[in-house]
């Protein structure tokens, strides 16, 4: 009975893993909360968000430009100081291929 339960639960977990909706989270960092440049009056903070993706088949790729694109997208959204940054790099795993993802979230001080 116990063995059957163990076998069934293991196979169910394997089936879930094969469903293709698995991820590997490589890094999550929070940074840049130190006081920003002087401002005469309280400034309004607004959340901004950028995402970069790269699809890779069989691991063949020669660049990490998706990170630069995400950074450029983040910076382009804010003419003021960008503080309170959180960066996440992860990979969406798939059948002999995967998608690298970088997510950047920050606060724009206007």
């Amino acid at each position, binding site marked *: 009975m116990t063995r059957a339960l163990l*076998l069934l639960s293991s196979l169910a977990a*394997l089936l879930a893993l094969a469903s293709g909706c698995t991820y*590997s989270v*490589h890094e999550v960092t929070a940074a840049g909360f*130190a006081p920003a440049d002087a401002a005469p009056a309280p400034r309004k903070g607004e959340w901004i968000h950028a995402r970069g993706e790269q699809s890779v088949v069989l691991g063949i790729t020669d660049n990490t430009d998706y990170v630069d694109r995400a950074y450029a997208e983040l910076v382009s959204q804010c003419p003021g100081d960008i503080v309170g940054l959180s960066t996440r790099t992860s990979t969406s*795993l*798939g059948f002999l291929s995967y998608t690298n993802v970088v997510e950047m979230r920050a606060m724009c001080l206007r």
Partner: protein
Amino acid sequence: MLRRLLAILPLALGAAPLCACATLHKTAIDEIDAQHGRLQPFEIHVSDTGLDAKALGAVASVAARSSRPSKVADIVALFEFGPKTGDPVFSDTFADHVVDEVLARCPSGRVTGLVSLRESAKYAVASGEVVTVRGFCILD
């Protein structure tokens, strides 16, 4: 003495899967500023459960007394192709609210000395995939 050690060894090996093996994958340290007020430390942990296909296959093989589940696990591994840090999880957004947590601890947004850690606590077939953020609120 040796006999006693040999008697304890299976017990120790048997208990090993119950204990977590901790792995530190990445560390990042932000600026540390102690000039602008008193500092109050805080620590935030967020985690998700990771699954190890190979280990699941091995467990299923032992339960089934057959090598087939291990072969199934090898095939499953093809469906989770790519660079991995720790074991695969079912959500990549489990740590996205960590900044909200930081701001909840420090509503003024005055934070310094942030240390971001990416860790794993590995058990037999599963793991705890953990993100830890430590830092200091700058008090007025």
